[in-house]
């Protein structure tokens, strides 16, 4: 026995090698019988399964919880239970309230944890184990982009939830991905004129930006929009997602020479950064002879609840608000309120609508085959889902509809009455050329499960 001998030697190594070869050769043996289908996860039997992939933990957990409530409501309405919700107001409507194509809708849920890895693992589980025909949800653009490309590769349609980055339907767009929510570019275009009106054209802005795809594109879009007004940009600082404490980023703002702080944050991040900015006395401060202002380009009812008094008078944009006065919004708010006792957030609305739109497209296409469903969604014009007349543009799978400019209400009536609508920017004003963001959709051919 020599000194350097490793005890498990040639023989074991050979055996292991053989076992390795056997393992590589074995797969055909165990692969389940997926080859008879025309496309991945073709629904058999009398149910069709949707996958609701939402953040249940992490910085965007509040949004995720509301999204899940909306999806559960949508499933009820699709199956003909409850009061029918926006199925009563949607035009044109192919759904009959008996499920989709005669199959009852079932669902599975997953936690994205607002992490790309976890979200993809959860989506993969839904596709491979639970056999979902469509994945939807999410509250972060990083996650949306990651899950969208996964779904595209797997051949399963992805109906994005709350994602506001230009990249989702811009440079990272995919044929299998669809977005109802608006994007940062639209926010910039809608918000710009209102900012000029309220704060003048001679301002110096300081950006704090969540350091991922959404933050980057929102910073860029808002920067472009404000610089066109004549504003200067003093500095843009990136902050990690879910930082919790923003004081180290806010202290330098005070003496930077800026007179507007733009917070490109969302969810709990925005609640924390705004609260701390207010605690630092930024809103009482005078800079360059003008009153210091804070702008939050994207915010929601849920965030306003979290931020409390600090949100009062702050300008931003929103996709939808439950206080809109059209029939669809009223119907949806009533039905959501009856089920859960609170008005729906914009995250809830966009997710509800996405689920309904997918189901309707299947009904119109007469099949769950994704190629046909994609065709049915592309260029689809509809009304009565809360945002007025809306177009699902075929070129980039982005919805075009009204954008709301909102402001934190000074004297709210109750804890849900926190935002007032300042301006309703028509869809035509926020429509842009799809070519400006690049990217390509890729093939929409149906794929078999791998």
């Amino acid at each position, binding site marked *: 026995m020599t000194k350097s001998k490793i005890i*498990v030697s040639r023989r074991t190594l050979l055996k292991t090698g053989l*076992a390795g070869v056997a*393992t590589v050769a074995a797969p055909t043996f165990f692969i389940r019988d997926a080859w008879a289908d025309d496309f991945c996860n073709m629904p058999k039997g009398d149910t069709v399964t949707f996958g609701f992939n939402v953040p249940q933990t992490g910085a965007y957990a509040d949004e995720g919880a509301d999204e899940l409530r909306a999806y559960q409501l949508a499933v009820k309405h699709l199956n003909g239970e409850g009061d029918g919700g926006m199925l009563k107001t949607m035009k044109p409507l192919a759904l009959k309230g008996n499920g989709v194509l005669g199959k009852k809708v079932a669902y599975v849920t997953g936690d994205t944890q607002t992490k790309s890895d976890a979200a993809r693992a959860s989506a993969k589980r839904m596709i491979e184990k639970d056999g979902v025909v469509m994945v939807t949800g999410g509250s972060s653009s990083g996650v949306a982009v990651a899950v969208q490309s996964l779904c595209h590769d797997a051949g399963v349609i992805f109906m994005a939830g709350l994602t506001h980055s230009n990249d989702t339907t811009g440079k990272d767009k995919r044929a299998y991905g669809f977005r109802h929510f608006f994007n940062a570019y639209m926010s910039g275009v809608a918000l710009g004129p209102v900012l000029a009106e309220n704060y003048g054209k001679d301002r110096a802005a300081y950006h704090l930006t969540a350091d991922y795809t959404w933050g980057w594109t929102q910073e860029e879009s808002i920067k472009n929009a404000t610089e066109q007004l004549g504003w200067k940009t003093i500095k843009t600082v990136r902050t*990690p997602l879910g930082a919790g404490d923003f004081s180290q980023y806010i202290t330098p703002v005070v003496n930077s020479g800026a007179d507007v702080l733009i917070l490109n944050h969302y969810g709990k991040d925005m609640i924390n950064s705004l609260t701390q900015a207010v605690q630092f006395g930024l809103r009482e401060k005078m800079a360059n002879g003008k009153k210091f202002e804070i702008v939050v380009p994207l915010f929601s009812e849920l965030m306003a609840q979290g931020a409390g008094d600090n949100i009062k008078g702050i300008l931003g944009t929103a996709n939808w608000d439950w206080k809109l006065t059209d029939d669809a919004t009223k119907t949806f708010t009533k039905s959501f309120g009856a089920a859960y006792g609170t008005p729906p957030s914009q995250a809830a609305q966009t997710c509800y609508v996405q689920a309904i739109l997918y189901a309707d497209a299947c009904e119109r296409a007469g099949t769950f085959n994704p190629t046909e469903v994609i065709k049915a969604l592309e260029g689809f014009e509809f009304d009565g889902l809360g945002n007025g007349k809306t177009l699902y543009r075929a070129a980039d799978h982005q919805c075009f509809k009204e954008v709301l400019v909102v402001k934190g209400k000074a004297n709210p009536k109750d804890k849900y009455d926190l935002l007032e609508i300042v301006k309703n920017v028509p869809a035509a004003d926020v429509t842009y050329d799809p070519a400006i963001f690049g990217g390509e959709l890729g093939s929409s051919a149906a794929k078999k499960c791998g």
Partner: protein
Amino acid sequence: MRNTKVRDVILLGCFAVAAVAAPLLAAPFGAGYPDLLVKFAIFGIFAVGFNILFGLTGYLSFGHAVFLGVGSYAAVWSFKLVSVNILPAVIGAILVSGLFALAIGYVSLRRSGIYFSILTLAFAQMCYNLAYSVLTPITNGETGLRVLRDDPRYLDSAVGVLGQSPSLFGLPMTGWTGYYVCAAVLVVAFAFSVAIFRSPFGMTLRAIKTNQNRMGYTGFNSRPYLLTAFVISGMYAGLAGSLMAATDPLAGAERMQWTASGEVVLMTILGGAGTLLGPVLGSGVIKYFENIFSAYNEAQLGTTLSFLPESIHDGVVKTLSLFVGEGWQLTLGLLFMVVVIFLPGGIMEGVMRVFRVKHTPPVKSLGDSAQRDIVGESVIEEMPADYGAHPAPEKALAEAKIGTTAQ
């Protein structure tokens, strides 16, 4: 000695068979789908590697996820710049993470115990923050590094290979083929770890764990051995990271976060530190909870328990629903507490007790192991005759002789 060898081969054989049959074995638990089994295999490799450091030497690294992350990034860059074949990616990832381990280990191993853990944790957080925001051009920050359509892939374009998703000479790395490739790597990695456990090198590492001071007093410089163990386990982590990137070509910084480092510590302790199979079992349990338990919602629970009488059904469902879905970490925490309190040696200690393997003293403290794996005991009793402290007395004897003649 013979006996040990035969038993090792049997163990390996069973392990390989289990890996091949895993889709069938896991199906009853709802875990028989490729993505989860791939995770079992990859985190199995990660934990097996971690165990070489923690289980054998007792040095608790709290920043091992760094090497996992570095391996992932290296692999994705290989997919972007070299080829979609996973071979260069895996080899590159192992080398790069080995280099990182060498640098971090060289500094951290100057201290032991809690100071070592803190140093590795500090390095890990540093690397995480670098990847998350400072080195965004290399890592693409929070969004994660992805393989894009228009990446150069110089080797592929030179030989005219098309395709954008990672493969092993044309075998796709998705679905079941992906699992079997990972499983084959796991079996090889496991075999290598058995070899290390049984080797004189492994014995030295155990000696370090048992009493490092005494080793020092006998003139044994333990640091090179520790550094080697650290680098090897770092390379295991890099291998796991590269496979993660191969089966899902996206590398995110969160892979390097301290929670990810903590996870592998939990896996190893839960399964049984210092045992051969323990870490693999531990990683399986944790990944199972994360993927299956977290997806179990109240409605499903209601249907599963529909056999209960109406009167208590709702109450039971309400109570139990706290522990599934979002509450999966609560259940995992409880399980972890039970294991730590009643089975400090991890799941493997439980298995040993059930099968009444002799020579299994109850483990007193967490992370400790009395080499309780089925075959470990005999190795310790039969140290190779020509190894370790043996030459020293001869030399001393010779010196003593010289001394006497001089007199």
